């Protein structure tokens, strides 16, 4: 099964046919069979200095687990991955492997990179947690650490700190942990059962989870700072709107709202579940990143005709190629070089007025700058509009932290070990970088946990 040109990957997973999968939320990729996995693992050169590992922000020992798969020692493969990564079933599915581990694999130039993501997923998916050896914990240190936010950065830091013997309390403002893994990334790319199972593994280390706690309010900052150390991982959840006329009318959503209603609140099952969402018969999604693809594909599954409006060219779409391909197969119509200028209708959306864009000289991002073509406006009929044009760091807690140094995007400024400008307060993931990726957030959580542990032991922190 050929993948799109330009992306070289190893043996591919089976996918459910687009005509079938567009009617449900079942997973699109089906994973590798044991035979496929072993054949793919066999191709690995077992490099002495494995380049792939340098591409993995959490340092999974890739050759070792790939060898274990090749030799049929599947359980060992899984145990090996868990040494470095407690969320392998998540990462195997959603890591941008082409720019991480697989992008660094020596085979990626000449041959095809080893399909490390699929192999990791294969090893992780085998069997449930039962029978899995519990991860070892160091003796209790008597130190208390608060972790704020239970997305991938917070989960990873919590696990690493608990492993090192610290008493960890993990605070989450929503009713369930997981962050974007739960409310953002849709079921058909990342089944929630998979996320829940991996979170169980983190909690099994003795991490105390406290949901429904908006830190800064449910737990005042003074009480937060009374912990021996604090790791802030509140993510980049603040949705941006385009600022065009008509955005307040009924039927205009941020991608965050649309996806949260469906993924977290199960609006696809309304009225069996209590939260509604406008299913729409004609949906316009604005934006061209992974979030836009997810929103468009969810809207298709709710039964709408979906157009995705993006202001640059097709080749400039920032989303992963594979997600673009999946979206297209599922019938999402792409309208590139177009930008919305006004949302029409009152009180409900009836359409989106757009203008045609032409591509001019390269801008600082190295892409051609889009410019409006005079008199090119046109209208797309729509009853629902979903804006997926980006998010920025959650300002709520940051604003309340006395003396916190922040960057241009409202992000917390940190050093490479995650230290903020406030003693004993560390941060990582999207709150520090702005919207990025699951694995970068996990890497940040892991580095910060190591720094917190070292600082607590050396007495830098009390």
């Amino acid at each position: 099964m050929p993948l799109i040109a330009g992306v070289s990957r190893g043996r591919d997973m089976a996918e459910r046919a687009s005509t079938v999968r567009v009617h449900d939320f079942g997973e699109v990729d089906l994973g590798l069979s044991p035979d496929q996995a072993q054949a793919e693992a066999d191709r690995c050169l077992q490099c002495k200095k494995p380049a792939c590992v340098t591409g993995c922000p959490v340092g999974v020992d890739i050759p070792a687990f790939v060898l274990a798969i090749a030799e049929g020692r599947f359980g060992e493969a899984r145990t090996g991955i868990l040494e470095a990564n407690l969320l392998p079933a998540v990462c195997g599915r959603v890591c941008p492997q082409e720019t991480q581990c697989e992008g660094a694999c020596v085979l990626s130039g000449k041959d095809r990179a080893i399909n490390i993501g699929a192999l990791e997923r294969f090893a992780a998916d085998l069997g449930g947690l039962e029978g899995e050896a519990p991860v070892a914990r160091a003796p209790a240190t008597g130190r208390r650490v608060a972790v704020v936010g239970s997305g991938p950065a917070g989960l990873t830091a919590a696990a690493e700190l608990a492993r090192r013997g610290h008493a960890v309390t993990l605070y989450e403002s929503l009713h369930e942990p997981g962050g974007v893994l739960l409310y953002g990334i849709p079921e058909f790319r990342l089944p929630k059962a998979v996320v829940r199972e991996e979170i169980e593994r983190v909690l099994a280390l003795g991490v105390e989870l406290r949901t429904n706690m908006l830190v800064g309010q449910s737990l005042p900052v003074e009480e937060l700072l009374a912990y021996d150390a604090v790791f802030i991982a509140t993510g980049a959840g603040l949705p941006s709107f385009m600022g065009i006329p008509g955005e307040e009318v009924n039927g205009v959503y941020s991608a965050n709202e649309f996806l949260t209603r469906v993924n977290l609140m199960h609006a696809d099952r309304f009225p069996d579940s209590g939260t509604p969402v406008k299913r729409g018969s004609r949906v316009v999604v604005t934006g061209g990143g992974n979030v836009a693809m997810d929103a468009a594909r969810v809207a298709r599954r709710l039964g709408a005709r979906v157009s995705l409006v993006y202001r640059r060219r097709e080749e400039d779409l920032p989303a992963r190629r594979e997600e673009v391909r999946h979206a297209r197969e599922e019938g999402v119509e792409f309208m590139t070089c177009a930008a919305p200028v006004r949302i029409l209708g009152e009180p409900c959306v009836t359409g989106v007025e757009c203008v045609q864009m032409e591509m001019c000289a390269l801008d600082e991002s190295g892409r051609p700058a889009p410019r409006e073509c005079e008199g090119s406006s046109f209208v797309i009929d729509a009853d629902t509009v979903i804006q997926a044009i980006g998010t920025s760091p959650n300002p709520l807690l940051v604003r309340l932290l006395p003396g916190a140094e922040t960057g241009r995007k409202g992000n917390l400024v940190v050093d490479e070990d995650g230290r903020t400008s406030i003693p004993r307060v560390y941060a990582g993931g999207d709150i520090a970088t702005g919207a990025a990726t699951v694995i970068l957030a996990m890497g940040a959580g892991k580095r910060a946990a190591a720094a917190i542990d070292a600082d607590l032991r050396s007495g830098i922190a009390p």
Partner: protein
Amino acid sequence: MYSVVKAEQLADRVHELVVEAPHVARHAKAGQFLIVRVDPDGERIPLTISRAEGDLVRVIFMTIGATTYRLAELRAGDSILDVAGPLGRPSGIPQNATCVVVGGGVGIASCPIIARTLRGAGNRVIGIIGARNADLMILEDEMRQACDELHVTTDDGSMGRHGYAADVLKEVIEAEPVDQVWVIGPAIMMKVTSAVTRPKGIRTWVSLNPIMVDGTGMCGSCRVVVNGETKFACVDGPEFDAHQVDFDRLMQRQRIYPEEEREALERHHASHCGCEPGARHG
């Protein structure tokens, strides 16, 4: 799980729940709200924190849709799956000022905590509470204790004065200099009542109730237009300067899901006995 320690019906379709939720109760301030989710398939709905003492919080709500009817069925000893909060910014409390707190209908629920806090900060507090009729009036005693002076009105004259809260407010601001006013109730009542203080330029606060999901600034469902700018009511509010609020837009956005709400309510009632919704059983 959060235990319900008290559940009572206060008036026609108006119910009170007292819930054990220490993380909310200990830090709640006047003007803030919480979000409840009753059971695993439940919607997250915002309710004002009407009182907080020790580990207990009180909410008062009117049954209008599936979730509030479901809440009205809860009894002492039952539990609520999720209670998140306190959410939103607290009311800004002046000192040594004369303040008027106006509550309309179920909006009266929010008033005593604000009145008490204002009075505690050394303000003179005049309360005005209005309901359609005597059967819908709530918290009169509590308001009388919390305020220096209390006016009671009903639209039909069945209790207190015959008329609207806005009429009383007009008289009060004529009778003495007033520094700040709070108006809390249904959107249309807040629109009409806060218009009264505009000519005199009296600082007036309203507590906006758009549809919410997370209540933490993450989705934008709760966006309202204030002074021509988009604000998120859950984190920038819920209290805003009344004279800058686009009430028509607020009311428009409260009506995003009329068909869905009807469907959910019909389903809720169909899954229950034929008694009066929210009625006491045995």
